[in-house]
């Protein structure tokens, strides 16, 4: 069946739901009407849309950690700790990697092993296995909104269980949770799965329940040029809006050059508004998400604090609605709760200290913004052309033609031709364009920026530069200069 950018037919959607809910026993716990009633009883302070909209109005940047462990009681303790000790404004429930691959049996095993070993053997909270009631316990145990964060190509059952479970925000998308998170799942399939998720959110919306949706901004988290992640974010926003989603948070992963990072958040906001309006979704509200540096971190904790602080500063100066926070244990793997709280407190202090300071709009910032907008438009125009006006088919064809191409992604459906590298000021530029549909002058701009760096470093602009850049922040620098 050819998937199109059309709202899923209600009858077919409801029929599909029955199948989805059968995939694991806890599906039985989902009762839509009861869930709607439950949502209407959730106090104001625990509804993500309210908190985001309020922050956006006053230009405040909220802080949110990543966190999830195998067992409910420990997960609740973790969230409460991050709220109280870490001063988190928003909380997450990060889902484990087995659940992300719909391997509920392995997740069940992980829960059992966790109980036996007395420590979490899963890297997140297996929400499907725990079911609706336990999800509600999690939400009710804290006094701020909780978002589901994962990386699941087919998150239909996960969405059913967690939304019925009282979560008010759901991360992911058909591209952003496929290409960086899967090896061989077809894009058409994941877009279809996420049409279901968005339709479900839209269905709640139709029944008067505000649920926020957030495409995953940073993608592979490694030197992703803003126009690539913006293109994905806007496509997923449009696809979600089609299914009835009314509240969207669009994200971007910090690259480290302040001007580029600020311009990225500004342009993301403008582009999203522009495209949503053009497609007739002018009642869809957009907020923004800034992810602190997603690449390799320094081993040394005091250096990690510096990376976290710089991310917090860029988030605040860009006026992102929220910032997703790293921890000083980042280089060592999944952090302790203390390290997680530490990253939050560092971020809170910076965000508070910068709250009242504005950054002036400068020439370079405008130029950077202008370039990101032009590049993103060139990609999106070509996507729409390829789909003869249909966004889903355009996206599928764009990936197979390399017109959309995410650097360092594991998916075999991704061309993998694009290579990024930092310019002499540390902004991320294109070293290889692959088949990105950029105009001559755009390409020339990137070539000049990188050749400037090559001259300063007296070396070729090649893959070694990319590798040096990937390791640079972990080694204490932004630009990976030759030794």
């Amino acid at each position, binding site marked *: 069946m050819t998937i199109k950018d059309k709202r899923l037919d209600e009858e077919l959607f409801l029929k599909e739901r029955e199948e989805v809910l059968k995939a694991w026993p806890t599906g039985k716990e989902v009762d839509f009407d009861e869930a709607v009633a439950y949502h209407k009883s959730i106090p104001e302070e625990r509804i993500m849309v309210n908190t985001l909209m309020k922050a956006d109005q006053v230009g405040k940047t909220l802080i949110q950690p990543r966190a999830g462990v195998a067992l409910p009681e420990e997960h609740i303790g973790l969230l409460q700790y991050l709220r109280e000790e870490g001063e988190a404004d928003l909380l997450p429930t990060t889902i484990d*990697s087995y659940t992300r691959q719909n391997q509920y049996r392995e997740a069940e095993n*992980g829960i059992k092993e966790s109980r036996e070993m007395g420590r979490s053997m899963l890297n997140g909270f297996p929400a499907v296995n725990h079911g609706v009631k336990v999800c509600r316990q999690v939400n009710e145990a804290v006094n701020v909104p909780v978002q589901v964060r994962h990386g699941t190509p087919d998150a239909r059952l996960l969405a059913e269980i967690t939304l019925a479970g009282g979560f008010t925000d759901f991360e992911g998308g058909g591209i952003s949770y496929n290409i960086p998170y899967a090896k061989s799942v077809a894009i058409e399939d994941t877009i279809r799965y996420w049409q279901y998720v968005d339709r479900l959110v839209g269905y709640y919306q139709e029944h008067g329940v505000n649920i926020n949706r957030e495409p995953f901004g940073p993608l592979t988290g490694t030197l992703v040029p803003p126009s690539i992640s913006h293109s994905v974010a806007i496509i997923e926003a449009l696809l979600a809006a089609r299914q009835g989603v009314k509240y969207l948070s669009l994200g971007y992963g910090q690259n480290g050059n302040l001007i580029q990072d600020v311009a990225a958040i500004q342009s993301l906001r403008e582009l999203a508004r522009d495209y949503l309006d053009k497609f007739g979704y002018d009642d869809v509200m957009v907020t923004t998400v800034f992810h602190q540096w997603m690449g390799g971190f320094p081993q040394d904790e005091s250096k990690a604090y510096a990376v976290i602080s710089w991310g917090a500063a860029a988030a605040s100066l860009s006026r992102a609605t929220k910032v997703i926070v790293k921890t000083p244990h980042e280089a060592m793997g999944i952090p302790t709760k203390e390290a997680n709280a530490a990253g939050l407190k560092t971020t809170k202090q910076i965000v508070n200290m910068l709250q009242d300071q504005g950054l002036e709009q400068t020439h370079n910032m405008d130029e950077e913004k202008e370039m990101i907008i032009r590049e993103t438009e060139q990609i999106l125009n070509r996507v729409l052309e390829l789909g003869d006006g249909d966004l889903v088919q355009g996206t599928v064809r764009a990936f197979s033609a390399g017109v959309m191409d995410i650097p360092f*992604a594991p998916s075999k459906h991704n061309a993998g031709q694009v290579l990024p590298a930092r310019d002499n000021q540390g902004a991320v530029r294109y070293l290889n364009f692959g088949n990105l549909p950029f105009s001559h002058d755009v390409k020339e701009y990137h070539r000049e920026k990188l050749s400037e760096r090559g001259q300063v470093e007296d070396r070729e602009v090649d893959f070694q530069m990319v590798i040096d850049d990937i390791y640079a922040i972990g080694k204490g620098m932004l630009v990976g200069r030759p030794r």
Partner: protein
Amino acid sequence: MAGKNDDNKPTVVLGVIGADVHAVGNQILEHALREAGFDVANIGVMVSQKEFVSAAIETGAEAIWVSSLYGHGEMDCRGLREKCIEAGIGDILIYVGGNLVVGKQDWEKVRKLFLDMGFDRVYPPGTLPEEAIADLEEDLKSRGVL
């Protein structure tokens, strides 16, 4: 993906085990191994133990390099050595590296855990490719391969 070994270069099977999709380090390791003169059978991310073993047999590999970045390494890696033994390549070099367990744990304990599972070398997060490549060259020399 490299096919059967048709030159004199030793072959390394490279992959990210389990449900793990971290691809960046995998791509850098492939590049670094090639630069160092190895043939690389890069079987990518989300690789099962069986796939590691099959690729090693198919390419006549001298070593298997397992990465695990997402904390489930302990569960994913148990039994890999046994599978190699069953398949008749019991003495192949197996290295593993990454964020091998959930949470910050005493590294020496983690190392011992994986050595006991039959891994020849175990690397903590943040190890540079050069270091593991130097070890591999040493191990291969002591086996008379290099």
